[in-house]
Structure formats: structure tokens, C-alpha cells
């Protein structure tokens, strides 16, 4: 029994993913759907507090270290792997399915990592697998976006690595525990984590890369990287004040950019950052309730954001269009997709009876409990903003507004099933929060369904809705993008580096085999004097030789006077 129990749960997914290309289509479907369930089973059969340790470079690693938080995240990652696999089964390429499974496996690996090295190993694997997901659409845009994604995440990874090494050098321990942010190394670790979380200033990779993936690819992408980052922040930096600032920035950044965005899946990508912002604020607040809230919100967010992206992905899959300006009126022919999208939208906006309602409110409640006035007001305003940019805007522009004339049917069965499953979960978690609350790391002393809470939330959201429709003329979609921090490395850096690179090019060309030729020019000059016809090589007339004899004699005689 112990033998089974100590299998790191992420491993079957990673190994299975490597087998995928060798399988027949039927077996592949079985693996894609079966392995996540196996993982789920593995997670829940782990004896409480199980630890597996191995030796590496003289350090004790714990690739499997059980905790409540780990199980929570592993569970939702496994569920996500299942539903994502189901949704993508018909249209994702084999390599893409593999990459998605590796992402899930790595995310689960991160959840169970008891030490920083294991963490890093899965961290990098996650980055690579995610890059493959982005690349899988094989468009020039996805190539470039994927490359930018990879480079940024490797940057995060190497910062993390440097931080880890600094931490190990300072403390001698690789254990992954809560850190106090009292050394440069820990700051580096935090920076590495935050890059994956989509924190400023390096957040643009997310709306840049994710929407370039396939419908199923983006569903998978949305779940793992940022939430793994939330997990490690929860474990490593609970209560770090600076996170509140980061979180608030992300919350509003997401809203504002999403409001200006035209591409439906980029709207949702911005809203990922917005939602992760809530979680990070929760982690920054750091009370038990706040941490519970952050964890719970990660759990629910994975599900409703996946649902939203499945809905958007279905639209993309059926119409081939992704810009709001090209879409509209689809509710008529894609009712299921529209309904599931709306359920997701309600959940992200924390409508009562949806999953968002029971998780997000814990975070703002903890802000109130801690009397963080500014934070609380901001969170409430942001809650309204979420409804504005994701709750109404996404379904409205995709499924309603003007009639685009498109009349595609609902997507194939497996995609519909994926959406139905997650729509059900959104409602179920909202209606019966207790099972989720039991999974949370700390005991939950919070009742979401009070009369006051429900009413105030309804007031907030519905009046936001009013604002949306009143301001609708100002929210008209245009064929534009909004510049972000990525301008610096997509435009400024290449332009600035251009002269340098050109100079290097020239230098290298000059230095390569042509050097020989350049040297021979120099030699040509030497040749003039030293070549066979040069003055120094010619046969001199006897007279001039004698002249030299005399000169030399003179020199010797003169030398005596000096």
C-alpha cells in the first residue's frame, strides 16, 4: 500500500503524456480522460502528511509532501485536466494534448513539492509545456507569442533559480516553507513567482500568448500557470504586505484593459489577471480567512474561467472568428454555448448561487475584518468592475449586441459535455459551498449566504449592469489593441538593440574569414617594402652596402660621445 501511496500524483500525467503520441486514437482518449481520474484517486489515497524524500546534490528533496493546500490544488488541477481533455479531445493535436497533460502534471507536481528544487523542476516543465500549447496552432503569431512567453517564463525561472540558490546558500536548506522576505534571495524567489502570476510589470505575456492557442489549448493554459503561482505564493509568502499592492494593481489593470479589448479571448485573458489579483490581495492580507479565500477563489476561478474559455473557444471553433467586432447575435444558434457562457460570467461576477460568490467574498470580508479601508473599497469597486468587463461585456458582445449574421450550431458533443460539466460545477459549488470549505487549509468560519450579503451583492452588480448599458455607446468595440508593458520588449528593446546587433553583425562579418583578407591588405603594405621586389629584399648595389658599412662605423664612433 505504501508503495502505491507514495507515487507523486503528477507523475502518471507526465509519463502518460509522453506515451500519447504512440497510442491509437481510442487508447489516447482513454488516457486523456482516465489518467486525471487516476490522479484524483492517487491524491486522495495519500496518507495524511505523507512525505517522499530523495537525495540530490547533497540536499534532501521532497518531491511528494502532502498538505491540505496541496490536495486542494491537486484536486482542482486534476478536475481541470479531465474537463480540459474532454473539451479538447476532438480538436486538439496529439502533441497539444500531451502538452496539456504535462502542464497539468507539472502543476500537480508543484502542488506537492516539498522543496524548492522539485518546485523548480516542475515550474520549468510547466513553462515548456505551456509554450508548446501556444505553439500548437502553428501560426506565425503563435510562434512569436510563444517565443516571448517562453523567454519571459525562463526569465522568471532563472530568477527563481537564482533566488533558490541564494536561499540554499544562506540557510543550507531547500525546504519550501513560508518565507519572511528578509533577504535578496527571497525577493528573487518572489519575483520568479510573481512573473508566473502575471503580476506587473511583466503581465502582458498572458493576453499576448494565451489567445494564440487553440480553443482547448487556452482552456488548459488558463488553469495551470497562474494558479500554480497562486499556490506557491500561498505557501511561500502568506501575509507579505507588498502582495496587496501587486494584487490591487492587477485587479484594476485587468478590468481597464479588458474594457478596451476587442478580442473575446483576450478579454478573458485580462480577466484572469484581474481574478488572480483578488487572490494575491488575499494572500497579502494573510489572515486565515484571507488565505482560505484566496485558495477557494483559485479553485472556483479555475472552473469558471475554464467554462468561459470553453464557451469562447466553442465560438472560435465554430466561427473561426475571435474579435467582438466580427461577432454578435450568436445566442440564437448556439444556445447551450451562450447559456454556459452566461453561467461562467455570473460565476466570475460572484452572483449569489454561483461559485464565485462563495469564494471571493471571503477575501473582501477579511479585508474588512482587518480594517484595511482602502483595500476593501478597492475590492468592492473591483467586484463591480468584474461584472462590467467580464460578467456582461463578454456575453453581450459575443452572443447579443448586433446580429453578425453568423448562425453556427453548438459545438460537438465532447465540447458541450465539457461545458455542461463545468457549468454544473459552478452552480453546485455556489449552492453547496460546504464540501469546498472542508477542503480549505484552515477551518472555515464564514457564512456566505446572509441576507445582507446577498442583497448588497445584488445591489452592487445590478447597478453595475445599469452603468454598463447606460455607457454602452462608449464601450463600442474598435479594431484596436492597447499598449502594455510588453511594448518595452516588443518594440523599444528590439529597436534600441538594432544598432547594437547591426554593429555586432558587421563586426562579426569583418572578423570572420574576411579577416584574413584584411590582414592581407596590411601585408600588402609590408609587401611593398619586404616583398621580393621591395627595397629590403632587393639585391643592393655593392656601393650602397659599403655606404652602410661606413654609416655603421660612424655610429659606433659617435656612440662613444653619448
Amino acid at each position, binding site marked *: 500500500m505504501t508503495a502505491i501511496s507514495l507515487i507523486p500524483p503528477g507523475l502518471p500525467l507526465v509519463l502518460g503524456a509522453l506515451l500519447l503520441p504512440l497510442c491509437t486514437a481510442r487508447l489516447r482518449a482513454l488516457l486523456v480522460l482516465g489518467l486525471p481520474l487516476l490522479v484524483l484517486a492517487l491524491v486522495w489515497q495519500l496518507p495524511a502528511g505523507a512525505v517522499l524524500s530523495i537525495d540530490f*546534490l547533497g540536499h534532501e528533496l521532497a518531491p511528494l509532501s502532502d498538505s491540505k493546500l496541496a490536495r486542494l490544488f491537486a484536486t482542482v488541477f486534476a478536475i481541470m485536466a479531465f474537463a480540459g481533455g474532454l473539451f479538447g479531445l476532438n480538436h486538439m493535436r496529439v*502533441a497539444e494534448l500531451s502538452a496539456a497533460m504535462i502542464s497539468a502534471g507539472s502543476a500537480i507536481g508543484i502542488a506537492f513539492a516539498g522543496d524548492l528544487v522539485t518546485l*523548480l*523542476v516542475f515550474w*520549468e*516543465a510547466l513553462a*515548456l509545456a505551456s*509554450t508548446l500549447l501556444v*505553439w*500548437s496552432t*502553428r501560426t506565425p503569431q503563435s*510562434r512569436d507569442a*510563444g*517565443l516571448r512567453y*517562453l*523567454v519571459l517564463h*525562463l*526569465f522568471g*525561472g*532563472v*530568477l527563481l*533559480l*537564482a533566488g533558490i*540558490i*541564494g536561499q*540554499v*546558500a544562506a540557510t543550507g536548506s531547500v525546504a519550501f516553507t513560508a518565507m519572511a522576505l528578509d533577504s535578496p*534571495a527571497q525577493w528573487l524567489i518572489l519575483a520568479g513567482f510573481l512573473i508566473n502570476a502575471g503580476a506587473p510589470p511583466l503581465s502582458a505575456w498572458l493576453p499576448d500568448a494565451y489567445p494564440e492557442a487553440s480553443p482547448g489549448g487556452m482552456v488548459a493554459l488558463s488553469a495551470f500557470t497562474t494558479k500554480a503561482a497562486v499556490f506557491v505564493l500561498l505557501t511561500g509568502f502568506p501575509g507579505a504586505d507588498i502582495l496587496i499592492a501587486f494584487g490591487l494593481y492587477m485587479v484594476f489593470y485587468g478590468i481597464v484593459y479588458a474594457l478596451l479589448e476587442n478580442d473575446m479571448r483576450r478579454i478573458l485573458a485580462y480577466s484572469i489577471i484581474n481574478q488572480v489579483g483578488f487572490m494575491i490581495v488575499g494572500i497579502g492580507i494573510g489572515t486565515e480567512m484571507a488565505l482560505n479565500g484566496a485558495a477557494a477563489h483559485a479553485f472556483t476561478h479555475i472552473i469558471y474561467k475554464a467554462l468561459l474559455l470553453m464557451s469562447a473557444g466553442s465560438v472560435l471553433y465554430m466561427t473561426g472568428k475571435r474579435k467582438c467586432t466580427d461577432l454578435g447575435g450568436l445566442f440564437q444558434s448556439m444556445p447551450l454555448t451562450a447559456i454556459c457562457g452566461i453561467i461562467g460570467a455570473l460565476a466570475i461576477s460572484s452572483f449569489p448561487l454561483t461559485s464565485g460568490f462563495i469564494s471571493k467574498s471571503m477575501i473582501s470580508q477579511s479585508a474588512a475584518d482587518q480594517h484595511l479601508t482602502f483595500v476593501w473599497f478597492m475590492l468592492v469597486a473591483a467586484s463591480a468592475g468584474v461584472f462590467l468587463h467580464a460578467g456582461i461585456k463578454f456575453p453581450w458582445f459575443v452572443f447579443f449586441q448586433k446580429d453578425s449574421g453568423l448562425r453556427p450550431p453548438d459545438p460537438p458533443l465532447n465540447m458541450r459535455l465539457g461545458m455542461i460539466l463545468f457549468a454544473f460545477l459552478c452552480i453546485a459549488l455556489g449552492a453547496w459551498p460546504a464540501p469546498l470549505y472542508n477542503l480549505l487549509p484552515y477551518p472555515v468560519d464564514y457564512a456566505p449566504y446572509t441576507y445582507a450579503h446577498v442583497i448588497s451583492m445584488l445591489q452592487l452588480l445590478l447597478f453595475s449592469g445599469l452603468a454598463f448599458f447606460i455607457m454602452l455607446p462608449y464601450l463600442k468595440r474598435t479594431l484596436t489593441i492597447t499598449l502594455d508593458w510588453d511594448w518595452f520588449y516588443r518594440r523599444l528593446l528590439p529597436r534600441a538593440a538594432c544598432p*547594437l*546587433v547591426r554593429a*555586432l*553583425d558587421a563586426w*562579426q562579418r569583418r*572578423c*570572420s*574569414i574576411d*579577416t*584574413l583578407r584584411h590582414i592581407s591588405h596590411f601585408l600588402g603594405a609590408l609587401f611593398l617594402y619586404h616583398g621580393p621586389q621591395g627595397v629590403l629584399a632587393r639585391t643592393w648595389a655593392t656601393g650602397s652596402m659599403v655606404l652602410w658599412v661606413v654609416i655603421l662605423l660612424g655610429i659606433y664612433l659617435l656612440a662613444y660621445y653619448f
Partner: protein
Amino acid sequence: MSPEIILLACIALPLLAPILISALHRWPNPREAVTLLTSAGLLLLVLSLHDAFLQGARPAIDIAEPLPGLAIGFEIEPLGMLFALLASFLWLVTSVYSIGYMRSHHEWRQTSFYSYFAVALGSVMGIAFAGNLFTLFIFYELLTLSTYPLVTHSGDNSAREGGRMYLGYLLGTSLMLLLLALIWTWSLTGTLDFREGGILAGTVSPAMAGLLLALYIFGIGKAAVIPMHLWLPAAMVAPTPVSALLHAVAVVKAGVFTVLKVTIYIFGIDFLSEVTATQWLMYVAGATILLASIVALRQDNLKLRLAWSTVSQLSYIVLCALLITPTGIIAGSAHMVMHGFAKITLFFCAGAILVMTHKTRISELDGIGRQMPWTMAAFSIAAISMIGIPPTAGFISKWYILLGTIESQQLVALGIIIISTLLNAAYFMPIVYAAFFREQTTATAHESRHNGAEAPLTVLLAITVTAAGTLALFFFPDKVLELAMMTAGAGR
């Protein structure tokens, strides 16, 4: 056999093998058998030496003494052991690879190719086991001379130009600067022996020691620190097995090996830590890392890109040596091995592509992963190792490199490594992308159908072994690290 005899045999075996190889000129199969047997034999010898070494044997033997106090002698120390293991193992693999490569590429002058290859390996063994700097220098020059015919193997004009560049740079730097440094050291200390803790302490002021160190660093042209690096891209005119073993592993590693030896056993860490010039030399190495990476980014010729990447990676090791800490030495020693495995894999793949499709440019590689999945999978693993991502060998050395920079508070070096990681990714990953995610153009698809699919079996075998090694060294780095740590211990 006593360890001393084995030690001499390690050097003599590959140096004598060409006699038999040339004799079997007309019979290719027995001729290749000789190469294989020699390389396998050498590996066995080195392994047995390794066993003896770990049990505490420290064989040392002098064979001649041209000048009083200046002997030609051999001795084993951990770093040399490590280098010998690396080179002899990869020679065996490369021999297998060469047979497939040379035959399917219908190369000419194969006999002389295998002969010179063996001599080059003999020189590498001589370098690895050199008991003093003078002996090392001799074999260092012999290595240059014996690889020259390999570089100019194809015999055409570009090969000759490349060969001149190769010879000019390597002999030029070694005769101008390294030899000067050698004689200077000798005139200061009266010896060139490798001693734990160095020989220079107390004989020269730190300022002059800095100058001397600069002479060494730039004089060891094989380490390819800017501006002594241009021979390496020029050497890419050689057949691929040569580029793979010699210009990714043996020759260039001989360079950085010498740098490490000089810092550890000639200067000594303690003495060197008083020398402020190490800072500036480290910045030069750092600049090499970055500039070479940027140049690599712009290369379309696959082998050239790999060559520039080698230039950059070599300076990692030089930088490690200049950290002047035990961790830096561990990092440098480990990176010698880790980079060796990954880079040889990359070159093997480049050669396999060349043989099967006659393509040399990255821009022609679209969809090659579909045609040669096995080769390109190996390529990807090696590329990941070059970036330093787990679970590959490159991660292990990157760990120590970063640990070294952090321990010694070299923030500039740290920043350089970080940026270089990104550059590595930026010039390797597009190749992976093109291979697997781009569609073959119709022209190339037609061609590839014409040429069959994967590379010949021996080539694939070699690729598989080195790629597997790249992975295995992540999980089992102990043997390498043991020797690296012993080296670091000797530096004190």
C-alpha cells in the same frame, strides 16, 4: 598493470592507432574496427584508471626532462580524470557516429580522417594527464596540429581559409601569449609543476600576476574568449564528427581545462583572490557570453549557430574559474562535462540532418521534426540542457554556476548568466519550433521523400546515447560532481 603503465597506455594507444589504421587503408571494415577497438580500449583504460584513482592511486611518471626543472611527465588529478573520462567516452560514441556519417556522406580520405582523429584524442589524453604546464603545452600544440588536417579535410578553398584561420589563431595565441606566460612563470618560480595551492604565490606582485593571468586567459586560444574566439566559427568547415567531438568537446574543453588548471594549480585560489585583475577578466568572459549569444542569434547556418553558442558557453567556464571560489571550480568542472554532452548531441543532429537532407541552414529546417522525429527529439533535449532547464545535465552545472556567483556576490556575473539563459532560449527554441511546428515546404518534402527518413542506424545510436546521457547526468551527476569537488578541494 600498474596505474603508471595504464596512464602511459592511455596516451600511447590513440597515438599509435594511426599506424594500424593507415596500414588497413584498403579495407574499410577492419579499419573502422581498429578505430572502434581503440576507442573502446581507451575508455576501458580510463575507466580502470578512474577506479584506481578513486581508491587513492596517484600515478605520476616523468618520461623526459628537456631542461633542468622542466619535465615531460604525467600525473593524475581529479580534473584531468574528469576530462579524460569525458573525452574517451565521447570518442567511442563519436567513432560509432563517424562511421555512419562518413560512409553515408561518401567522404573522401577517410583513412587519414580516422588517423588524425586518433592522434587528436591521444593529445587530449596527454593534456588531461599532463603532470606540468609544459607537458600540457606540448600536447596542446600537438592537438592544434593534429586537428588542422581534420579542419581542412574537404580540401576546398573555404576549408583552406578556415584552416588557416584555425591554425593562425590557435598557434598564434599559444606561441605569442601562452608561451610567454609559461616562460614568465618559469623564470619566476623555476618550475611549471601543477601543485595544489599553486606555485606563484609570493613570487610576483598581484598587479603583475594580473597581467600574467591575462596572458594565460587570452593565450589559451582554445578557450575562445573574445577576441581570441574567431577560429571556432572558422573551424566549422570541418566534417561534422570533427565539429562534434573536437570543436564542441575535446579541443575547446582542452582550452577551458587549461584555464581551470592554471587558476587552480599555477596561481592557486588563495593567491588569485588577491589579484584584482580577475574582475576585469571576468567581465571580458561575461561580454563573450553575451556577444557570442547575440551573434549566434543571427546565424542561419546551423553549425555556425552552434559554434557561436559554444563560444558563449566556454566563457561560462572561464567565468567560473575566475570566480575563484571552490564552488566556481565545481561549476566550471561540471559544466565542462554537462555542456559537452549537450553540445555534441546538437552537432550530431546537425550532421544527421546534413547527411539525410543536405541542409545546413536553419531556415530550411521547417518540418524536419516530422521527417526525423528521433533526431529532433534529441536535439530538443540537448537544447533544453543548453538553456539549463531540468531535467537535463545543463541544470546541474547552471546550479553550481549560479551558486558560485551568488556566494561570491558577483552580481554582474549573475545578471550575465540570467540574460544569457534567455538568449540561449532565443536562439535554440526557434529551431525546435521550426522542426516540429512548421509545415515542410513542398520542395523540401519532395527532397526528403527522395532521401528516406531518419538518419543511419549508427548515427541514431550515437545521438541516442548522448541525448540519454544528457538526461541521465541530471539524475546521476554524482560521479561527475565527486571529481569536481575533489578538484575544488585541491584548489585550496
